[in-house]
């Protein structure tokens, strides 16, 4: 099966209904209302974005968002940024353990929030590049973009749980 890869200017992508996208392949088909999903939501945020129709069938794949035409790029970025809600933790206000739950209260790029983490061993994942991925008791995700760049107090609060 040949996959349609979208790159540079071989397609124009515009906003469709809600967070869906309309895709017009140069010299080819036009698809309405496709949903953009990251194929690598953790390791490659801007690369390999699949475009699915309502039934989940893939219509095309974007190789790299950054190589798209400016308008298309904005449309895709808006769509994925709406779909993927992974707040970036900028400051840790509280972090303590109670009844075996790790309780965290944080400041993120999307506002203040607090949540519980069930297991510090399986739900807190430090990566080698300094990122830390967290998953709360309701399966929501959070990210600390770079633990080394957090302020001292936040690091201190969090370090003992790392």
């Amino acid at each position, binding site marked *: 099966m040949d996959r349609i890869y979208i790159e540079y200017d071989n397609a124009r992508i515009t906003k469709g209904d809600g967070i869906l996208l309309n895709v017009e392949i140069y010299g080819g088909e036009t698809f309405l209302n496709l949903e953009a999903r990251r194929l690598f939501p953790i390791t490659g945020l801007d690369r390999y974005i699949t475009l699915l129709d309502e039934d989940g069938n893939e219509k095309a794949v974007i190789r790299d968002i950054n190589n798209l035409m400016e308008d298309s790029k904005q449309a895709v970025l808006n769509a994925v940024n709406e779909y993927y809600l992974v707040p970036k933790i900028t400051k840790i206000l509280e972090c303590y353990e109670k009844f075996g739950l790790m309780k965290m209260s944080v400041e993120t790029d999307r506002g203040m929030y607090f949540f519980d983490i069930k297991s510090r061993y*399986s739900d807190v994942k430090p990566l080698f590049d300094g990122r830390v991925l967290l998953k709360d008791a309701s399966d929501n995700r959070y990210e600390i973009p770079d633990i080394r760049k957090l302020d001292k107090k936040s690091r201190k609060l969090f370090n003992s749980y790392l």
Partner: protein
Amino acid sequence: MIFENTLTNLPIPKEFKEKAEKLIPPGEKVLFALLGDLNLHGHYGASMIAVTRGSVYAFDEFHKGGALNLSIGYIEEAKVKRMYGNAVIRLKLESGEQLNLIRFTYSVSALADAAAAFFENVAGGGEPEKELEMVAGAYEKMRLVCPKCGRKLSRAGSACINCTSKGKLAKKLGAYIMPEKKTLFFCIALSLITTAMALVPPYATKMLVDDIIPNKNIKMLLTVIIALAAAHGIQHSVGAVRGHHLRIIGDRTVARLRNDIYAKAQYLPMSFYDKVSTGSVISRVSGDTNNLQAFMLRVSQDAVVQFFQMVGIIVIMVAMEWRLTLLSLIPVPIVVAVARFFGKRISPIYRRIWRRWASVSSILSDTLPGVRVIKSFTSEQRAIKKFEDYNAEWLKEDVKASKIANIFPHTVTFFVTCGSLLIWGVGGSWAIGEINGITVGLLVAFLSYASKFYEPVNFFANLNDSYQSALTSAERILDIIDAEPEQNKEDAIEVGRLKGKIEFKNVNFSFDKTKKTLTDINITIEPGEIIGIVGTTGSGKSTLINLLMRYYDNYEGDISVDDINIKDIDLQSFREKIGYVQQEPMMFRDTIFRNIAYSNPKASVEEVIHAADVANAHAFIAKIPDAYDTMLGERGVGLSGGERQRLSIARAVLKNPSMLIFDEATAAVDSETEHLIQEAIERLISGRTTLMIAHRLSTLRKANRILVVDKGEVIEFGSHDELMALKGKYHKLIEIQSMSLTIDNSQ
């Protein structure tokens, strides 16, 4: 009041209350309100829907004017659209317009599901009051279970007894050492003797230096030497006895811990193993138990001994010379401060070491059994490299820890030595000037007591270090010991033979909150029926069986067998009645005989042979040189897929179950073997309720009714003829398969 008896998941903020009171006509009442935690643009913030009998009001700063008002009658479709880390209630109106009502994180998505169902049902003509019951159920459920362990709470919103009892680490671990109480006290008593004996020599030194030698008292010299010899003799022989007993206590404790963890691991639910790697469980059983045991002994023994030693020495020192005693206490605060400083730094390192170590051991437990795959892709080098990399990560952390762990005691020793220099300086000058009655012997004895005094100080300072490392071990062990086991009600019903009526009522299930795996399953299967289950891969067929087997308990709705809710049935007596031939038959490293007899260890030889016969396995077993004594490798290596499949059918036969479940029993075999297995299955069925998952529809010719599953929903359920007449999904599947069959035949 519009907010009277309103169901709500959180208190309604004042701002929304005021807005709602302006917006909603006073005559109406808000049946339920759902508070979201995101605004429509994905930032944290409050949002709310308030639902009355006929209308829904959505409050979000990004709705025009901060609120949206809609008649439920206009709603054509309402669903919860789950995205990544967030979801929206999305409505499709009769006009064709689509809109998002509110946005929220997964924390409230279960309630949103209920709200969406409410909209659709009421729009479709349902009674709001009746539909509200369903919503109320979802709200109640959310408040009635502990968010951590999933256990029912005594009262909505109350603290979970199970979880609050956590954290009493010492008490829980103490339970493991308590059975050794007597020996422990015996050992402590022994240690008092050894400690007392250890305190004799310095005093003897003082006598020798100050008194006996200057006075040339030979007789006294002999007596003191004999006394010293006796003291040493007692100290070391008692020490040996004590050591022996301590080791026994330690070994028993660790064995007890291991047994407990292993036993607990057996009863943990599948959802535990979905998340925790077996490698990390293994390292807990092997490594952490040792670590913890060592620590428990340290605390229960050495701590006591050192404490007595400390007290004893202080008393002696004060009696000898109180001014020097004060002097030698000077380094104590420094030692304590240093210990605290290092303790804080070292505990995160220990956690990291463990994490790294757990990854190393999960590589072991993950890749070694897959060594065939590694070889087939000739990726030995890659495997080695990966292992080395992980090992290097471990090494890095361990080196870090080693640095701190070694700087620390030496720093402490340094300060302690400074303390003794102080005593030398001050005490020495006093001895020279013959001030305060200080003699050479006293000074020497005092110094030797002082150095002994720092042993316990050092010990207690260091205790923190081993305490930290033990604490992490303890946490991980308790992680398993405290984990919620599969639930078995106390008053569960023991069932005898089951007739085999199976009923799913409004069953909804998701493995995690990110996606729904089964939606609204409503089926009734009569006793003795043979049900074929078909559907595309990943549609949820095996999951359906998983729920019936009670591998996962956290579904919504009810599943009953013979009109008893399966959650009320004693787990063991229930599973015993079901013969389950799994999609991937799993054999153990044992003989063929014992692998078959696994399902019924009491079975006689002939019963086992008969079972193998029924499963069409006897013939091939008989041909292997070692026949029933053939030793299988790990996971059943040494048999072909079809052979393993037949052994697992033989297991099911031997169990003499009331109900049968086959998950793709013939998926991986040629048509001849399929025929053999098919025969075996048919022989086995004889009147038992049977569920058969199959991709090859030809397998299902004996089925009374077929259940077609698609994307987690039952879309068709009926006899072959009915479904063919329906011309739906089943019809399509049959057409595709008979087409390929004609191709097969024409070849």
